[in-house]
């Protein structure tokens, strides 16, 4: 059983990590597309329509990959985690079914119209199709985050006499406080991916002196929205996430921070390698008292270390959790710096000529993907050893009859298929960027409508 459990965990981890490459961009881009379409509608300027069309093509490719890699996620609750599905399906089945009924129908219906129906719909109708695609994808995000939030911090449930977990309060599930903050934090991460990608493509056009008017629009849009998102990512949403973990998942907080011993005035470790066997942090670079302050707003506040908890309640992948968390926070801090600097240059009208800044924006493009992935790894590794925090352990959740060999078979299958999809994705996106928003008119002023 132990071995099969590990394969099931790896199975879910691999497929969800690959899947989330796509929705984080499409959810972020959906917002930016509404922004571009609104600009087009208000100014009547064809430039914004063309810009939106270019991003709609990139959106379409990512959306398709998000859909095809997303269906396996819902299935896996039943295929690989049957014991969990049986115990908790009555609760989280609600949010997952609502995602299908409320967001997927909306998204899929209007995406077709958004991508294929610009001429049929007219300007206002097309704006609405963009808005409804945005609404659908953001609703979808909420239902998924609410599902995860319930696993992090179960609310609105009761135990049936037979031991099954039953829904007791619909609003308790849907308006879980954990879900609201986690949603804000997750969506800001997605917006940042959208902004960094848009700004990077713009910077690429400006640096290579092609499609320069579009390049300016992309850089400006990405930097303006990205600056706001980067700041909100840290405060208040990241800060609130940390507080919720400090209050509800104390061993998790200690493991994330690499804090083995309880301390009054606990330091914040910036760097260092957790040595779990010897219960210490090697080569620490620390800010004294900072962890206590961030957690409790008191410099001398007492923070519990891992030693205060039974080892059976420790997350089982402490180093990975620690590095994920530090990567996420470190990158998030860098994003604020990069975006704010670019915004200042934009304000003084120097951004489009500041080649070093454009280079920075262009090279930053993989970083938000890494940060978002690291953030999810922090949440999910931090939840361990629980599948539903405090209610059901991960070891109890896997499918009892699916052997390790069968799980390996399908995991290897997914790895092969996703490698091909990944190469295909890079290739198609590269082609779209290479063709640009205005094929055949690289240096000229955008031509009038065709």
């Amino acid at each position, binding site marked *: 059983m132990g071995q099969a459990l590990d394969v099931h965990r790896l199975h879910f981890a691999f497929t969800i990590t690959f899947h989330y490459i796509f929705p984080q961009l499409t959810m972020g881009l959906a917002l930016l597309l509404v922004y571009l379409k609104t600009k087009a509608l208000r100014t009547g300027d064809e430039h914004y329509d063309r810009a939106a069309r270019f991003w709609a093509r990139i959106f379409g490719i990512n959306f398709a990959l998000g859909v095809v890699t997303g269906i396996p996620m819902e*299935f896996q609750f039943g295929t690989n985690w049957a014991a969990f599905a049986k115990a908790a399906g009555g609760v989280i089945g609600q949010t997952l079914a609502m995602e299908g009924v409320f967001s997927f129908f909306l998204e899929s219906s209007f995406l077709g119209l958004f991508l294929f129906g610009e001429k049929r719909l007219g300007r206002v109708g097309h704006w609405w199709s963009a808005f409804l695609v945005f609404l659908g994808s953001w609703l979808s995000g909420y239902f998924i985050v609410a599902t995860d939030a319930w696993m992090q911090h179960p609310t609105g449930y009761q135990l049936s006499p037979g031991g099954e977990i039953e829904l007791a309060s619909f609003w308790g599930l849907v308006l879980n406080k954990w879900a609201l903050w986690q949603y804000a934090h997750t969506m800001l991460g997605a917006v940042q991916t959208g902004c960094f990608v848009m700004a990077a493509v713009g910077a690429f056009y400006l640096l290579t002196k092609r499609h320069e008017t579009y390049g300016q629009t992309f850089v400006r849009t990405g930097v303006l929205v990205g600056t706001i998102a980067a700041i909100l990512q840290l405060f208040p949403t990241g800060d609130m996430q940390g507080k919720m973990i400090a209050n509800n998942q104390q061993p998790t907080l200690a493991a994330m921070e690499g804090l083995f011993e309880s301390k009054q005035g606990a330091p914040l470790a910036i760097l260092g390698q957790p040595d779990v066997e010897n219960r210490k942090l090697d080569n620490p670079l620390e800010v004294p008292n900072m962890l206590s302050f961030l957690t409790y707003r008191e410099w001398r506040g007492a923070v519990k270390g891992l030693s205060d908890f039974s080892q059976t309640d420790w997350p089982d992948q402490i180093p990975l959790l620690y590095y994920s968390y530090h990567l996420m926070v470190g990158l998030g801090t860098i994003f604020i710096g990069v975006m704010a600097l670019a915004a200042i240059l934009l304000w003084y009208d120097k951004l489009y000529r500041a080649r070093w800044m454009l280079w920075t924006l262009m090279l930053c493009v993989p970083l938000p993907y890494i940060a978002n992935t690291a953030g999810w790894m922090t949440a999910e590794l931090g939840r361990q050893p629980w599948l539903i925090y405090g209610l059901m352990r991960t070891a109890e959740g896997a499918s009892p009859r699916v052997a390790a060999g*069968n799980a390996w078979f399908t995991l290897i299958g997914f790895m092969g298929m996703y490698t091909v999809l990944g190469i295909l994705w890079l290739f198609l996106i590269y082609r779209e960027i290479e063709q640009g928003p205005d094929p055949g008119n690289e240096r000229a002023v955008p031509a009038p409508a065709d």
Partner: protein
Amino acid sequence: MERVWFCLIAIMLTIYVLLDGFDLGAGAIHLLIAKTDGERRQILASIGPVWDGNEVWLVAAGGTLYFAFPTLYASGFSGFYLPLMIVLWLLILRGSAIEFRNHIKSAIWDPFWDFLFGGSSLLLAIFFGAALGNVVRGVPLDASGYFFEPLWTNFRVGDDTGILDWYTILIGVLALLALMMHGGLWVQLKTTGEVSSRAGKLSGQAWWGVLVLTAIVTAVTFRVQHQVLENFSNWPWGFIFPLLTVAGLAGVLFELRKRDERKAFLASCAYLTGMLTSVVFGLYPLVLPARNPLYSLTVANAKAGNYGLKIGLVWWVLGITLAAGYFTYVYRSFSGKVTLDKDSHGYGG
């Protein structure tokens, strides 16, 4: 309450089969009836704006099954582990093929995706049929409430069952033929010229296979699953469902001869609805029969808590009403025969 959800999920799955059925069927026949790039583009254009929405019915039905009958979801999905994963891979390949084919025009790019699209559609139709066959035949559930089926054992309907045996393969082939007919009628309705007439002709040919296999499958199903006979003799009003099947099948031939493309497609919908409702009616109250009847999952022992089922009904009705609205709007927006002058902004053009 669980009876309501049993019916609602059956309705969702039926809608899924009617809608995704035509685009799967269109995929399964497109290599046969469309030779040139322009013809293949016509077929893709006839399903392009809607296939994704059609597939959402499967996802939504899966989600609804999950919260209304969590025990069924857990047992069924883990027991059918291998075929479900293969279905997922086929869905991934097929979705990629539809979306990526038209991005590049090249002598090796589009034939590759056409082949994948055709092959995956064909296999999906067979697998969905075989899955239905498995549910009707029953699975080796035991006292733990779980089972695991290998892809095949000895191809017999015994106690040592596999996903594929002669019965489930038979249903798989029937499903393929029925969806080829259904998809052919859709393509006939939505396209023009050679493709449209070839599609109609192919549907007419598939019709005979559907007729023969429907008769055989009906006869053997009574032997494979005794609950079916019991239900039809206890509640004779249920014969309305097989009647619908017969009427639908007759209607297809009749309307094909009359060259009414729209009614022929609707008759095929009636046939598929009749088949699925007959199965569902025949199985009730079983949701997943076990080879040993003692361990069968029924609506009563697989359902979720009552509060959840009640509250679910509120948002479900709201959500599906909205979805029905979107679908009506989308299908209206893309109504009529497809034309290949680019009606888009050159997405993938």
